């Protein structure tokens, strides 16, 4: 099978955010990286597009995405002071959604910066 080659890919493992990486990928895995350091290479190889986990878990049991989203929305809506936390391994677009959700739910939003 021919490999999909991506030029100038961006590594998000550390704050250097190197954007000169070359990735060689088959349908499910990145099989080769060029220019990445050992941490970056491990990062790219560590994540695959395989279906290794259920799409969602609710109370420890596999559930559909729709159920999980509704349950999550219920929990956040009922809470008096929900916390939205993390944000450092997601995109800016996702961060923007998270802030909007925190505002809507009347909660607190915080990242790794506060540690």
């Amino acid at each position, binding site marked *: 099978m021919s490999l999909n080659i991506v030029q100038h890919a961006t590594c998000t493992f*550390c704050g250097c955010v190197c954007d000169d990486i070359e990735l060689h*990928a088959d349908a499910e895995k990145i099989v080769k990286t060029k220019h990445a350091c050992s941490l970056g290479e491990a990062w790219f190889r560590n994540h695959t597009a395989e279906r290794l986990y259920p799409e969602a878990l609710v109370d420890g049991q596999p559930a559909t995405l729709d159920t999980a989203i509704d349950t999550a929305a219920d929990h956040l809506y009922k809470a008096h002071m929900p916390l939205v936390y993390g944000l450092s391994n997601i995109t800016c677009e996702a961060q923007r959604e998270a802030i909007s959700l925190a505002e809507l739910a009347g909660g607190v939003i915080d990242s790794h910066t506060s540690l």
Partner: protein
Amino acid sequence: MGGKVTCTLGEIKNRADFIVYWGGNPAECHPRHFTKYTLTQKGKFVPNGRKDRTMVLVDIRETPSARAADIFLQIKPGKDFEILTTLRALVKGHRVNEASVAETGLSIEQLRDLADRMKQARFGVIFFGMGLSMTRGKHMNSAAVLMLAAELNAFTKFVTMPMRGHGNVTGSDMVMRWSTGYPFGVSLCRGYPRFNPGEFSTVDLLVRGDVDAALVLGADPGATMPQPGIDHLARIPTIVLDPKVTHTSRLARVHITTAATGISAPGTVYRMDEIPLPLRPALVSPYPTDEEVIRRIREAVAKKPAWAQRPAAMAPTN
């Protein structure tokens, strides 16, 4: 005190002839920092690369980064603030108390030499890591670095930059700043943003048991928080979005698997010098992106009756 004199990594690559790393170990934590942005690159005004640059490492122990340095200054733990303020005094030509300098682990000659080199640099930079900003003095240490660099601009060009860790932690500071006015630890409980680290920072909120639900996005506090914080996460409804089932997922009520940022999810991330860069994912994930799942949760919450008067201003419009 406030304000950071800074620049992009591109400027440092092209101009910096004096580079200080303080409380960080780039050789192991940011492996390509030396070769891609700072030390070894040939730049427009430093045409001979490494030969045109001087590197100083300040740390409490000799890490592998010390091998790359021209000067390694080993300081006593928790003395960063004292050293930085002494340097500020020396830079300005004030007298300093030599007895208190002795406590820092450095001699007055070493500090004088460093202050002189800083003033003589054509373009200097201090990169500071968590060894400075997370130890005794914390944000006061960061403020002291920023002050020192700002004051050096009376003599030469000098900048600072924090060595940020995790991929897009800089991005979260940026996005929070331009949407709420504050970089982290923001409460929207009253419908408008309030900032108060210590009150609205995660560790404190969890350890005190203040919050009654948690949405964890691409983080694993279940593995890293102090135990009372983890206990609280297990007590309240916790929701986790992550490409993997994490420690936190196991104590959460809801886990949703999402595509991995930059590998199978597209978008934008910020580099440590606050430059946004596009992602070019190589894989197509069977899972939805964080962005999509958070949007759908927001839409589901928005369908419910409002808990307070709802400002429409901040909802993303696209």
